[in-house]
Every structure is written in structure tokens, then in C-alpha cells.
């Protein structure tokens, strides 16, 4: 019988570090936080049983300090590391460095991380495992004329994307041969600059795609299950903004087909732990492999809300060698869950990143509401890290109920001191096309005008002006000032 670790180090920050620690506490496992000094007073450090400071050339660099994290495990006696997402979560060398030090990496084997981390290699493996892939170049495109020839064969429009890319970097769309030449040069040079790898991949571009992904869980004993899908079509510049489970576009039959496909791929690469197979769903119902993320996803809460399964707990048990305690037939999707990512950004001003001191923080609570956040009142939101500061999610019996609950929860999310996108998120959820499930990855761009802010009406403006006047010490200071006019205010009790 395998045993769970007694102490786990969480190699991350913010809301995901807090979320992982919540499960550690529930499992009776002690937690160790690592932090850069900017995060010294953050919620993750407060929630952890122990905390170790890391140093780096930049604040982000501290969380990428592999020797520092290995040393922190040694100093605290942590026998396993949960990497969260981002930072070192998909870094195979990090997992190997931990293994060399006798520390368990709570995640997949390095070989699976490597093969799925390369877009070209992962597509080849997916095709070999019987997963539908978009028509495209079988290999890295070496030069511009080859790219044009392949594009003509596939048919325009085509998408160019960096082999080593991510987050939309090194991606370009081309509608004809001339655009293809320009797109190739730009995608390739951007990829070379960002990732040191200028190889570019050409594939068919789908006009109104949905982003649908399948959550898989695999143990070390050969069992691979899927936990249904999440639709993450509401994106801005390839970054997800709103995610839901199930997808409004999928029926039981497609769900089973996508699930079986994702399980087949996980089996083919010897996958262990939680992973996500991302796919593009076309309007005609056909789906194609996009990529596999070999880590916990930001949007995992919606799957947890509908299935009742704690994915982080499963990752920890699997890493300890335990077999999955349930089978595919035990996985049930109950109701509907939607998550909105709260970013410190000014949605009304070209999504400019925002900073500032959070003077007042109030998160909503109530039936079906889940908030994952990593902030404390008084905290400085800086430009040093990712601008996502919280995830607000709602679960309901129906999609309409989940939407209504999430809208209400966002209206009650109070983050004063920096600008956030909560009002924008609520406008997205309120859009009739969203309510109708007409979601695709161009949604935010297509509906930009309808999603613009509505100015306050006269009554609202009067209330706000009056509140500001009554709250401001200005009027009291003036009365207290030792000036002749001010002293005439002596009638004031």
C-alpha cells in the first residue's frame, strides 16, 4: 500500500498555490510555500505551514529557480512537489532534477511532458494514436516557399504557428500566398526570438472554431479515465477568459467520442497524472487535436464542480502510486459550471494591465459559488506577475442558472484599489449569444461593440457623486481649517 507524502512543497504562487494547499490540508499533508519577496505577505505564504524565500534576477525568475526549489525541499523535508500551472509545471528537466534528489514530482513522467510539449511531435503522436488532426504540414516547415506550397495544398486560410509556441506567440493567419509569405517570416522570427526555435507549422484555419478540451486522469497502473469536457471558447488573444463544463455544443455521443480519443492519446504516450487534451470543434461537429497540456489547467474548477472530483487530490494519490479508486462509469457530470477569470486590467481601455494597492477586498459566497483567489487586502498588485488575481465560478442545475449565479457573484466581487475586468466579464455573460451557447473563439472580437461599457445614467451618477462627497475628508478638513470662512461652520454639532 502506497502512502501519501507527509509534506508537499508548492512550487507556485497566487491563487493556484492557495488552491493546492487547500487540498493538502484536506488530506492531512503539511504544505511548504516558496515565494519571491514581492509575495512575502501574500495569501499563499499565509496559508502554508512553512515558507521558503526564493531569489531570482526577476520576480518571475524566483519561481523558476530549480536548484533553489530542490534545496527548499531538502531544508523543509518536503518529499514531493506540486508545480501548479505555468512556471515549471511543464518543464521535464525540473521533474528530472527532483527525481535525482529523491523528490516526487506530482505530475506526468518527463518523457510524456517532452513529447507533448513539442507541437509537431505531439501532433504526430496524436495522429498515430488515431486522434483526428487538422490537415497540415506533417513536419516543421523549413522555408517560405515550402510553406506556401503546403498551404495551397491544404487550402486557405491557413494558420502558421511556432513549434515551441504557446499563448498565441508566433501565430499568424494567412488568406492567400502573398499573406502566407509575410506570415511565415513573422511567425518564424517571433518564434526564434521568443523560444529560440524558429520552426513553424502550417495547418488549416477554421473560421468559427470552438475550443473544447477533455480532462484526463491516468494512474500508474494503466487506468486512464476522462472527466468530460470543458469549453473555453471565450478567449482574448488566445488567452482563455471564460470556461464552462459541459460544452453547450456537445451531445453525449460526441462527448464519448472525444473522451475515448483523449484517453487513447494519453495511453499512447504513457501518460500518468492529470492532463488535458485540447481540441478544436468545427461547426459541423468534427473535432481536431490541438495540443495536450501536461499539467493542471487554470480552468480545472469547472470540471471539479460538475463531477465532484478533486483533481489535485487525485494527482497527489496517483503520484504516491495509488490506483484510481473509481471507473469511467462512476464519472457523472451533474449540472453546469462556468468560471470567469478576474484579471487586473482595464477592459474599457484596451485591456491595459492595471496595478495598485488593493484597499478593499470582498469575495462573494453562496450556493453554487466557488472563488479561487490569492489576494489579501492591502496587497500591492504589481506588473511583475500574470494579471490573473482570482477565478470566480458558479455551479447550477442548468446552464441558465449557472450564468445567473456567476453574473450575481461577479457583481458582488469587490476589488477596490486596482482596475479589474469583473464588469466586462458580466457583460460577456449577459450577451444573448452567450446565453444561447453561440460561443466560438472569435466571440469577444466579433461582439466588441456590444460588450463596450455603458455609461452610468444620471441617477447612478448622482448617487456615486454623493457617496464620494460624503466619504471624502475634504469637506471636513475645510470646516476644520482655521480660516474665517471655515470658522463660520460652528453651527455644525
Amino acid at each position, binding site marked *: 500500500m502506497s502512502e501519501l507524502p507527509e509534506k508537499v512543497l508548492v512550487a507556485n504562487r497566487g491563487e493556484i498555490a492557495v488552491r493546492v494547499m487547500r487540498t493538502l490540508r484536506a488530506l492531512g499533508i503539511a504544505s511548504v510555500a516558496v515565494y519571491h519577496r514581492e509575495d512575502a505577505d501574500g495569501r499563499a505564504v499565509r496559508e502554508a505551514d512553512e515558507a521558503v524565500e526564493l531569489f531570482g534576477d*526577476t520576480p518571475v525568475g524566483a519561481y523558476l529557480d530549480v536548484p533553489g526549489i530542490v534545496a527548499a525541499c531538502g531544508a523543509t523535508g518536503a518529499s514531493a512537489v506540486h508545480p501548479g500551472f505555468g512556471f515549471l509545471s511543464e518543464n521535464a528537466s525540473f521533474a528530472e532534477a527532483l527525481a535525482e534528489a529523491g523528490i516526487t514530482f506530482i505530475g506526468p513522467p518527463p518523457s510524456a511532458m517532452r513529447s507533448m510539449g513539442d507541437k509537431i511531435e505531439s501532433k504526430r503522436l496524436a495522429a498515430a494514436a488515431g486522434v483526428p488532426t487538422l490537415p497540415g504540414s506533417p513536419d516543421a516547415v523549413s522555408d517560405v516557399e515550402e510553406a506556401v506550397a503546403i498551404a495551397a495544398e491544404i487550402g486557405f486560410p491557413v494558420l502558421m504557428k511556432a513549434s515551441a509556441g504557446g499563448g498565441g506567440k508566433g501565430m499568424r493567419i494567412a488568406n492567400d500566398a502573398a499573406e502566407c509569405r509575410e506570415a511565415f517570416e513573422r511567425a518564424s522570427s517571433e518564434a526564434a526570438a521568443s523560444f529560440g526555435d524558429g520552426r513553424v507549422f502550417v495547418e488549416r484555419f477554421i473560421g468559427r472554431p470552438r475550443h473544447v478540451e477533455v480532462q484526463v486522469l491516468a494512474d500508474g497502473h494503466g487506468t486512464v479515465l476522462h472527466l468530460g469536457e470543458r469549453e473555453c471558447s471565450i478567449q482574448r488573444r488566445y488567452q482563455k477568459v471564460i470556461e464552462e463544463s459541459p460544452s453547450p455544443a456537445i451531445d453525449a455521443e460526441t462527448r464519448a467520442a472525444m473522451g475515448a480519443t483523449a484517453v487513447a492519446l494519453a495511453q499512447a504516450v504513457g501518460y500518468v497524472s492529470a492532463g488535458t487534451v485540447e481540441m478544436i470543434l468545427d461547426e459541423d461537429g468534427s473535432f481536431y487535436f490541438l495540443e495536450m497540456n501536461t499539467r493542471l489547467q487554470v480552468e480545472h474548477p469547472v470540471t471539479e464542480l460538475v463531477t465532484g472530483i478533486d483533481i489535485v487530490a487525485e494527482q497527489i494519490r496517483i503520484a504516491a502510486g495509488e490506483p484510481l479508486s473509481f471507473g469511467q462509469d462512476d464519472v457523472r457530470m451533474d449540472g453546469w459550471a462556468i468560471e470567469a477569470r478576474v484579471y487586473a486590467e482595464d477592459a474599457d481601455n484596451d485591456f*491595459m*494591465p*492595471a*496595478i*495598485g494597492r488593493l*484597499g*478593499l477586498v*470582498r469575495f462573494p459566497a453562496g450556493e453554487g459559488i466557488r472563488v479561487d483567489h490569492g489576494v489579501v487586502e492591502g496587497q500591492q498588485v*504589481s*506588473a*511583475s506577475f500574470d494579471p490573473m488575481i482570482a477565478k470566480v465560478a458558479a455551479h447550477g442545475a442548468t446552464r441558465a442558472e449557472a450564468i445567473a449565479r456567476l453574473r450575481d457573484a*461577479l*457583481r*458582488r466581487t*469587490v*476589488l*477596490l*484599489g486596482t*482596475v*479589474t475586468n*469583473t*464588469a466586462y466579464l*458580466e457583460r460577456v455573460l449577459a450577451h444573448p449569444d452567450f446565453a444561447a451557447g453561440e460561443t466560438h473563439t472569435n466571440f469577444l472580437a466579433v461582439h466588441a461593440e456590444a460588450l463596450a461599457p455603458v*455609461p*452610468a445614467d444620471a*441617477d*447612478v*451618477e*448622482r*448617487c*456615486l*457623486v*454623493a*457617496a*464620494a*462627497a*460624503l*466619504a*471624502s*475628508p*475634504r*469637506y471636513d478638513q475645510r470646516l476644520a481649517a482655521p480660516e474665517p470662512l471655515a470658522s463660520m461652520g460652528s453651527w*455644525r*454639532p
Partner: protein
Amino acid sequence: MPFEITLGDGDAHAVDVARRGGRATVTIDGRDYHGSLRPAGDGYELTLEDRAEPLWIVVQGDEVLVHAFGRSWSLSIVDPIERSRGGGPSEDVATAPMPGTVVRVEVAAGDEVAKGDVLLVIESMKMQSEITALRDGTVEQVFLAVDDTFDRGAALVALVPEPEAVEAD
């Protein structure tokens, strides 16, 4: 004399407050409204005539941040007398067009610069941009160092004020 209160980028309202116990009369653009602001729940309750609204408030100097009607708002308070003393925006101080981090500082106090010269390089949203001098002059002060972060509108570099801009008194 009333203060001017502005909601976001909107028009300024002339606002005065006269308190009487827990009640107050708020005069907005010449019209009187009876109102109060009292702690309620984990925030406040505003009453204005026959309307009552729950809200949350943070006062940061002359900036008042309010969460009400399901979203946050920013209001600014200006004393028209102070403003008339202070003067308007000038070309003496280069300010940040967006929040970000200082990547490079190209000048130091005492340096002579020409209009268009790069003063410093900032990074925002993973994009670098140059902050340039708005006129010829001498650098008086560089307010930030490499790796410092700043908000939109922050003062970055000041030039020695031009002689004709200096007031006689």
C-alpha cells in the same frame, strides 16, 4: 466654495456638503439632496432622498473608489482654488502612458536633452516602448530606477523648468 467631483472621464459636478448630525445635505450642481452614508454589513449604505444603495468605498486622497451597482467606479475630487494655483499639465515632466516596469534609464540629472531624445525605456504587456523628451532642456530628476514598477500617469523624468515658466514670486 464647493469642490468639483468627476466620475471617471465624465463632466465635473460642483458639489458641497452641509452636515447636520448623521444627515447631510449634498448640493450637486445647485440642487439639494438629503442623504447619509452609514456602515452597513461589510460595507456602507448610501441614502439619497428616497433611494438606498449598498456600496463599498475606499478613499485614496482625492480619488474615491466606489463599488456599487455591481461594479467599481473611480471619482476624483478637485479644489478649484488649488487647481488655479497649481497650473495645468506641462512639458516639464514626462509621465507614463501605461503601467509598467523601467527597463533602461538613458539620462541622469544634469544631462542636456533635445526634444525627441530617449529618456528611458519601459516595458508593459511584454512590449518595450521609449519615453522621449517633449522639449529641449536639462534633466532635473529621474524619479525611477531600472526594475521599478509604476502606474499610468506616474512622473518618470522631470526637466528643469524653463525660465519664462517660472513665476515671478
